[in-house]
């Protein structure tokens, strides 16, 4: 009975990591550095959701984690696509 509580401790620890990662969004000199922090947060939230699915006995949270991983991939692809096309337009 003691192990699920330890998973909760790890989830809270990962949440603290996420808060520290916010520092990069605050100080990041340009947009691409801020995108990196978002990338780490996506993975962190996926890990937190997987851990919570185990601890809270909610298997549906694993589907949420799956969806989150998928959307996290789309964010960076969309960012690079959109900003680079904008740059090409502005230079031409």
């Amino acid at each position: 009975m003691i192990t699920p509580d330890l998973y909760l401790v790890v989830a809270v620890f990962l949440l603290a990591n996420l808060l520290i990662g916010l520092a990069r969004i605050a100080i990041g000199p340009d947009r691409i550095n801020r995108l990196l922090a978002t990338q780490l947060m996506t993975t962190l939230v996926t890990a937190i959701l997987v851990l919570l699915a185990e601890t809270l006995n909610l298997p549906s949270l694993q589907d949420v984690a799956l969806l989150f991983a998928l959307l996290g991939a789309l964010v960076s692809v969309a960012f690079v696509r959109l900003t680079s096309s904008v740059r090409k337009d502005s230079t031409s």
Partner: protein
Amino acid sequence: MFPDWLAWVLLSDLFPWLLITLGAVFFLAGTAGLVRFPDLFSRLHALTKADNLGLGLICLGLAWHNKSPSVALKLLLIWLLVLLASAVSCHLIARYALHSDSKVWKQRHD
């Protein structure tokens, strides 16, 4: 042939917890690297380790703890999706940074 202590460690509740703690350590290293490293490419390097190994170890630990094939398959699917996503997006970000003349950190020799 198979040592007793190893079997005990692998079958006890301790082992998945060990894996998950190790994964959390990798996430901590990734966060520290993201905040502390000097340029974009080294930050990218720190980030991918956290993505791949941190989440991989956590998923492996949870699958070990659960002992159910369907849950293990779903965790494997999540991990593979994150692997694919992080590989593709890190490649895109690195190429974008290379083309937009991102600063590369060099050690000073005084």
